[in-house]
């Protein structure tokens, strides 16, 4: 419907557009700055006034993935660098002594992120279907209980979980962290998926039941395909949460199962924090989430509010 009395005038649209664009650019600046810093030399990264035009280098990325040690000029002369990254490092009379721990921390993030996502979506789908279609005793209370688990400050449960995990040997293990993140994500998973499944008409399953399907078959062949997009976006929200989580990760892991968020701030260079390396790590870590956000923008609101608000 155009030309209604409620439509904004072109001037209003222009004015609104410019204000929003300014806010968006200001918001984006710190992010662009992170990405740019990853391609600077340490000297450029701390130049004042901040350098907008600079000679890009991959030093930050090389530093992120390797540990280096200073070598005598004789050693450097006797062992010339072979690869492009060795050449970057050799400029500082250094040679690569081995990989840094960033790679394994990143891998931990992937294992724990995807593991807990799979589990929480799997359990969440079952529970959401149960709550959506059956008369579960104390249904409302159980649903509220599930939601309320999200209100607990992570630090508050961390103490007994720390003790509990130590007793059963789950501390600092992938399995322990996967279980923990699954539990944390379940509240969102159940609530979101229940919303999606509620929207699928019950008649479809009833028709399937009459056609001779069992409950499980009807669930698998009728409900799951219908809920696929809902399940996919729930999965991405669970993944993003597990990916970004910090409090549990820093309290309950120390080495084996440490994820990237507690690790990135600990990247130290020669004189304090190695900002290009930190920026490189941050960029690699933030990039998947940025891409997901662009894909998810239609479902965003539902996901972040557990489906309490629909657009």
């Amino acid at each position, binding site marked *: 419907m155009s030309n209604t*009395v409620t439509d904004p005038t072109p001037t209003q*649209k222009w004015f*609104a*557009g410019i204000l*929003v*664009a300014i*806010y968006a650019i200001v*918001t984006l*600046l*710190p992010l662009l700055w992170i990405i740019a810093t990853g391609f600077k030399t340490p000297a450029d990264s*701390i130049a*004042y006034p*901040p350098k907008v035009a600079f000679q890009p280098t991959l030093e930050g990325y090389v530093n992120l993935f390797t540990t280096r040690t200073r070598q005598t000029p004789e050693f450097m002369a006797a062992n010339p660098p072979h690869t492009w990254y060795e050449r970057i490092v050799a400029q500082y009379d250094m040679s690569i002594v081995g990989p840094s721990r960033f790679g394994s921390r990143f891998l931990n993030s992937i294992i724990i992120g995807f593991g807990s996502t799979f589990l929480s979506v799997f*359990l969440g789908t*079952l*529970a959401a279907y*149960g*709550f959506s*279609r*059956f*008369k*579960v005793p104390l249904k409302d209370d*159980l649903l509220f209980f*599930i939601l*309320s688990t*999200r*209100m*607990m400050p992570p*630090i508050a*449960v*961390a*103490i*007994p*979980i*720390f003790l509990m995990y130590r007793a059963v040997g789950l501390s600092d293990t992938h399995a322990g962290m996967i279980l923990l993140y*699954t*539990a944390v994500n*379940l509240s969102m998973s*159940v609530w979101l998926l229940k919303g999606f499944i509620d929207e699928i008409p019950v*008649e479809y399953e*009833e028709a399937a039941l009459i056609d001779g399907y069992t*409950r*499980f078959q009807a669930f698998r062949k009728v409900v799951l395909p219908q809920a696929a997009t809902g399940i996919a976006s729930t999965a991405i929200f669970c993944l*993003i949460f597990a990916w970004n989580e*910090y*409090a549990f990760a*820093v*309290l309950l892991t120390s080495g084996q199962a440490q994820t990237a*968020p507690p690790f990135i*701030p600990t990247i130290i260079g020669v004189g304090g924090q190695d900002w290009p390396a*930190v*920026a490189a790590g941050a960029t690699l*870590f*933030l990039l998947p*989430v*940025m891409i997901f*956000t662009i894909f998810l*923008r239609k479902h*965003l609101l539902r996901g*972040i509010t557990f489906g309490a608000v629909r657009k």
Partner: protein
Amino acid sequence: MSSVGIDKLAVSTPPEIGRRIRGLSDRAIAWIFVAPTIVLLLAINIFPLIWTIRLSFTNFRVNRPNEVVKWVGLANYENILTDPDVWHTMQATAHFLFWTLFFQILIGFSLAWLINRKFKGSDLWTTIIVLPMMLSPAVVGNFWTFLYQPQIGLFNYAVALVTGVDASSFTMIGNVNLAPWAIVIVDTWMWTPFVMLICLAGLRSIPDSIYEAAECDRASNWRQFWTITIPMVLPFLMLAVLFRGIENFKMFDLVTLLTGGGPGDTTLVTSINLKREAFEKWRTGYASAYAVILFVTIYGLASIYVKALNRVKQR
């Protein structure tokens, strides 16, 4: 068979008949679906909570396993509630909560209101604005410390450019007066988009016809804004406050990485204080009582608030 036919058939056939034949009753199936979730949540949320409550009555210390654990009754609670330092952290948390909510509602609602003009490119700008809240608070906090560096940081440079103050003359996170604001700024940067999205949903839920009717009655724009827009968006705004309030009450990651509670203890919010008691001083029993108090506070405030929210919704 048309879908209408299926629907009619499904409604007219009593569903119980089909199910009873296949063994499992609906009740059993419901439990198979729901039980795993409940069991996991009991194991990883409720069991630890009960354990925390039990520990809160003792003087247990994790780092002294050989010491005899004494039952101290309510002493931990008494110590916490009479400790001026704890009240100080509560104040820091309240300050943080109030100002982040204030700015996020103000800016978030304004942005949503502007975006609702549906100008060209509004989708693109919205997506850009939404990016920060999807990022890892730990990594974001760590990087903002770089932006806040007095000599080299982008933030100080920008402030110097706009106001003309010397960029190296102030440090956002090292200064007792500025540090709380440094956190408020980053939290606002990160979470304003959340409030904006909820407000946008609220604005879009208002039917055009109401405004058209108001227009017929020759109500001024100002009047329309206060008598239609605000009341219709209010439940959404309250929901945004609830979500942000709970999250910021238990805020840990951003503050830890930005200031770690310092300088002094000006930004020592409750979560960080609790982490110090539990994992640095290892006063496990004391920290458990602290955790219980925090949880009861969040839960209590949230329950009261949800009641108010429902009343507004029903209006």
